[in-house]
């Protein structure tokens, strides 16, 4: 009995140690990136020979990097808006109408995730050339939306599955039309989920490289695209600075999501 208990504890401890080691191994590169961004020399080396903020100053002085930064934010926000709208509407529509169209929606939405981004990138480039969208923000936003929509859709599916649909019945029964009942009753219940879905879409767009490489022009190039061009010329700590910014944005995003989903829990703890 006690030896069993002992063994169980040992196994748990071993599992935790192994798990943490694996996690550390995966997170270590992030640490390297952040540390090297504070390098005082022009060489990308770990650990750096000296520390300074010179590459941050350089970044803030570079018009090209700042433009890329702006582009990434614009495209990210655009993607988040379009993908959230599509993902939420798709998941909502599927909940309220159990027709045959609904049953093929999930696999249909998934398709873009299964196609290699290189192929998507080339195809979209040709397609956008045809319709005259080449070089616009819209082309990259649409491409990223193809990837982000399924993620928002699946997040919302799970959010809606926890929603008490009788509330929608009650709202309509009390005279609320489709739009009113969605705004007054559904939305307040799922707004945290929508926020998380949108954030996910934003982060996906922020990081996407392959399709952006095909679709961007010098005036719309995003951070990953510019980073790639720069690395090909010179491997300096500027790349680390840019990466650090991306990491910080993603981490802040995740923290926001945690706060949003646990806001009620948090307020209950504080009250």
């Amino acid at each position: 009995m006690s030896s069993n208990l002992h063994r169980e504890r040992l196994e748990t401890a071993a599992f935790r140690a192994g798990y943490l080691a694996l996690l550390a191994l995966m997170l270590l590169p992030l640490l390297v990136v952040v540390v090297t961004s504070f390098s005082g020399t022009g060489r990308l080396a770990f650990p750096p020979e000296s520390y300074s903020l010179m590459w941050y100053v350089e970044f803030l002085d570079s018009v090209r990097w700042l433009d890329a930064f702006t582009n990434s934010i614009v495209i990210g926000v655009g993607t988040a808006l379009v993908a959230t709208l599509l993902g939420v509407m798709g998941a909502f529509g599927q909940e309220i109408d159990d027709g045959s169209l609904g049953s093929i929606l999930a696999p249909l939405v998934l398709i873009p995730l299964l196609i290699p981004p290189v192929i998507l990138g080339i195809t979209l480039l040709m397609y956008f050339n045809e319709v005259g969208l080449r070089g616009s923000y819209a082309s990259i936003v649409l491409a990223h939306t193809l990837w982000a929509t399924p993620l928002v859709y699946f997040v919302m599916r799970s959010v809606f599955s926890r929603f008490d649909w009788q509330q929608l019945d009650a709202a309509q029964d009390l005279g609320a039309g489709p739009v009113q009942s969605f705004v007054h009753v559904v939305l307040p219940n799922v707004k945290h989920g929508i926020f998380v879905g949108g954030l996910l879409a934003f982060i996906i767009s922020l990081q996407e490289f392959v399709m952006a490489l095909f679709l961007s022009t010098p005036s719309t190039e995003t951070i990953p695209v510019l980073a790639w061009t720069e690395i090909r010329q010179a491997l300096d700590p500027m790349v680390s600075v840019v990466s650090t910014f991306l990491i910080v944005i993603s981490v802040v995003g995740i923290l926001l999501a945690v706060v949003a989903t646990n806001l009620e829990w948090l307020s209950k703890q504080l009250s």
Partner: protein
Amino acid sequence: MSEITLNELEKRYGETTAVEDVSVEIRDGELLCLLGPSGSGKSTTLRMIAGLETPTDGEITLAGADVTDQPAYERNTSTVFQDWALFPHKTVLENVAFGLKMRDVPKEERRERAEAMLERVQMGGYGDEDPTTLSGGQKQRVALARSLAVNPDVLLLDEPLSNLDKRLREDMQIELREIHEDLEETFVHVTHDQDEAFTLADRIGIMDQGELIQVGEPTEVYENPANRFIEGFLGDTNFVGSEVVGVTDGAVRVETELGYELVLPTDRDPDVAEGTELTLSLRPEVLSIERNPTADAAEGAEQPVLADGSTLNAVVGTVENVLYRGSTVRYSVSVNGTAMFAERTGASTDALTAGEEIRIEWDGTDVLAFRADGSRVTL
């Protein structure tokens, strides 16, 4: 005026039929209970009246107007749901005022009306509460206030009391009854609880397997059930298998599984023949129990039709079990190996004990008979 007519209403989900050929006229101002076991289609019927489900076939009129294709938000019906479906992110007052807000009633007026409605259901002062913190009974009252606040032509109640405990449920039944008498509006109340239906209803509609079998006043459906299902569903009864052994003028003689031949008096042609299998229903309230059976009854011999048309039927059995239920005492009795039960009021002084020989008597006119397909034999 807010009478409702359902005309050959039908609802199918793929292969399964939830509601089949339901036709009924619900009178203005009446309280109709739709009663049936779960899965009988009563909630689906209610949801079709509300507009929350679209009928596959048939039509619904409300105050004379065809509303079959009208969505829920355009119908002036209002539903109290089983789980109440209060909006958790709104206060109690906002919940009650919601319908008025959707009707563009000015803010101040809807606040006043919502508060008045909360007073009416004895929830005054709870306006600022979070509905999720309320007890079941309080939520039920808020849901009722929310539905009544929009001043509906028809109030639809979808088993709203089934999640309450017995005492609270009975209190709410009386309150609902009072509110109904006050408002003189049409109420349709769905329930699976016979007692609740008998307490509340002006008329009861009994549903089984998607069909509306009988609609009538409580006494009518209880005393004059249309088929065997209703007889069994509305109260406890003894179903006794039997076979017709002779039809004479004014009487049907049957051989029962109790081992006795019984006589059912009739004043018409009952449309049964020798060999027809019948199920007899002996309700406990028509049975009387005697101690010390006399020898002649034990033989189960001649049981003549008396001058007033009644017959005295009697069987002898052994008490197997005594179940004390407070107001009544129920006796399980074995009659020649077949189980029956009979009841006495708990107040009767000479309690019977297990193993005693007893005699059960009843008047033959109180017996209902059903054919093998469940249909009633008119005696």
